[in-house]
């Protein structure tokens, strides 16, 4: 689960990470008031969306007067911001973060990730801040320090000192860096984060470390432990079909093609999409109905897949282990009868209670296209798009 920059900073601040003075605004007027409260002579107005590269899309603006803060806020709020990480339609901006602008001396990178290779939390630091760290790691790997953290001891001070020294945070900056790294790690560990990134981490006014921009994401399987993080969820940032699907216990991801897919299990769902592509078609979505799917759940899957106007045929591929083909078949029949489905529906059933499922489909008298295996199913679904 991703959260906004202003939420990340609020959270990090509560753990002791120094962040710029600032607050979030949802209107031109409140942006102006916040700037007045912060005081000073220069402010930065930052669009709050779940996508990076905001500066490149014009979503980060400097202001030299309160009027200018209002002008930028007015311009950004309600606009659709297009960045290298959004699609071509961009994302609607509903809020801006207004902060005191900083006098930056130097920029660094600091991050924590779940490292699949080390099977641990790994800290990443670099003196090349403000840039895409993956790019730096590729072109100049020596400039990126990576250390896997032993969960038995956490992130001890000596390790922070070592990392700080490697990226050149020495002298009076070193104790600040140690404190900041440990605060970031504590937040990451105590809130079950999957990713945390301070980029840039900057020296301001020549002697002070400050998190200029920050981003965090959290483990969806653990957020229920932290109501304050759950409250950060912004449904406006998510595809409404995906939100509705997750409410029904379905895992749905919209894609660009026209063959709607309903499958059990993530691996088989991907393989089904692959088989469609190999037959020259294009999947309209990834959809995993999970285990023990009830007839209602299957019917809901049909409803969600058909909300995508591009869908020209639907392929249901179920290899039942923990699922039951008879329940699935009942769900398909329910969907066909109640939803007036005009698109061709290709059904491939296999596994637990296969015979019962086939019988339910046959008895219904509905016009399914029966497929005997994965290849047959993909071929018939792609064929059906061409000849509806």
């Amino acid at each position, binding site marked *: 689960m991703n959260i906004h920059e202003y939420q990340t900073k609020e959270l990090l601040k509560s753990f002791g990470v120094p962040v710029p003075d600032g607050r979030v605004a949802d209107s031109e007027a409140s942006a102006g008031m916040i700037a007045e409260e912060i005081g000073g002579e220069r402010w930065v107005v930052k669009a709050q969306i779940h996508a990076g590269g905001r500066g490149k899309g014009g979503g980060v603006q400097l202001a030299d007067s309160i009027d200018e803060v209002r002008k930028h806020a007015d311009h950004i709020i309600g606009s659709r911001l297009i960045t290298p990480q959004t699609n071509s339609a961009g994302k609607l901006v509903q809020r801006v973060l207004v902060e005191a602008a900083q006098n930056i001396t130097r920029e660094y990178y600091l991050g924590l990730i*779940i490292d*699949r*290779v080390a*099977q*641990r*939390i790994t800290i990443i630091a670099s003196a090349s801040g403000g840039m895409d760290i*993956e790019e730096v790691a590729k072109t100049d790997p020596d400039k990126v320090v990576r250390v896997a953290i*032993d*969960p*038995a001891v956490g992130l001890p001070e000596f390790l922070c000192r070592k990392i700080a020294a490697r990226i050149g945070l020495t002298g009076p900056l070193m104790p600040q860096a140690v404190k900041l790294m440990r605060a970031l790690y504590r937040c990451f*560990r105590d809130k*079950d984060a*999957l990713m945390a990134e301070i980029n840039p981490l900057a020296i301001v006014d020549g002697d002070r470390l400050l998190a200029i921009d920050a981003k965090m994401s959290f*483990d969806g*399987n*653990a957020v*229920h*432990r932290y109501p304050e993080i759950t409250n950060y969820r912004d449904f406006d940032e998510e595809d409404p079909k995906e939100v509705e699907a997750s409410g029904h216990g379905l*895992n749905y*991801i919209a*894609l660009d093609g026209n063959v709607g897919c309903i*499958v*059990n*299990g*993530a*691996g*088989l*769902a*991907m*393989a*089904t*999409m*692959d*088989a*469609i*592509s*190999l037959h020259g078609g*294009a*999947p309209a979505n*990834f959809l*995993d109905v999970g*285990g023990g799917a009830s007839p209602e759940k299957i019917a809901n899957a049909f409803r969600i897949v058909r909300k995508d106007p591009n869908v020209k045929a639907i392929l249901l591929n179920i*290899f*039942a*282990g*923990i699922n039951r083909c008879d329940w699935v078949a009942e769900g398909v029949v329910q969907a066909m009868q109640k939803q007036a489905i005009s698109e061709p529906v290709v059904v491939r059933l*296999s*596994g*637990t209670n296969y015979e019962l499922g086939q019988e339910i489909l046959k008895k219904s008298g509905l016009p399914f296209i029966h497929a005997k*295996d*994965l*290849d047959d199913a*993909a071929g018939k679904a792609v064929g059906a798009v061409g000849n509806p």
Partner: protein
Amino acid sequence: MSVFINKNSRVIYQGFTGQHATFHAQEAIKHGTNIVAGVTPGKGGNTHLDRPVFDTVSDAVSQAGADVSGIFVPPQFAADAILEAIEAGIKTIVVIADGIPVQDMVRVKRYIIGHDSIIFGPNTAGVITPSECKVGIMPANIYQPGRIGVVSRSGTLNYEAVAQMTALGHGQSTSVGIGGDPINGANFVDVLSAFNDDPDTDAVVLIGEIGGTQEVDAAEWASANMNKPVIGFIAGVSAPTGRRMGHAGAIISGEADTAEAKMNRMEELGVHVVRNPADIGKTVDRVLKA
């Protein structure tokens, strides 16, 4: 023979008396699995499915001689159950639970160091040695005893591959699910290595997915160490970058993570790569007859 579990395995289920565990324990018993007991805290002293229930895994080890555990407890309690199994000296731990917080698994992986246990999963359909021992949720009827080892991240894609193989008369020595999570127990190399040492496994089918480098690492290991053919498939050629495809581990974050890149590299390393998921069985047949 087989790897990890066989007819002599003494199996317990943790979370034994729950609805899911009960159903799958019954299925496993029908398949010949030697389930010796179950563990449900607070229900020690009772009997369930004609087997004793213990409060702790330690009791199940000392009193019933358990050496394999299937973990069926809900995900928020699963890490604790795994730690308990490791501490009690269980050798093979199969974690069916799906949705365990990633950092819980980071701590489990730290704790297992120095202990003589191996974990399969989390988020696995389980491990099965056909007609001998089944610890998991897979439909037993598609498996048949034979000489092909199978290892996969995904459960249902494992069924798909196995059904194709069985239809062509190629049974399985053992089929192992390592699970779809980013932090998991045994990896592909651990399982390949066991199959390589098993005199009754002739070839291995490896089924992977986009995300991470596990499959390529496994192919590298196989190219240096395996004396048996490996047939490989990677799901997700059509998956977009940056979107998590169901499994917590299935996300393309770098070029090396794409299915295409993985399959190309595996092919270079001598793996018999299957490009079409419908051709897994046929490829096994072709490789064995070559």
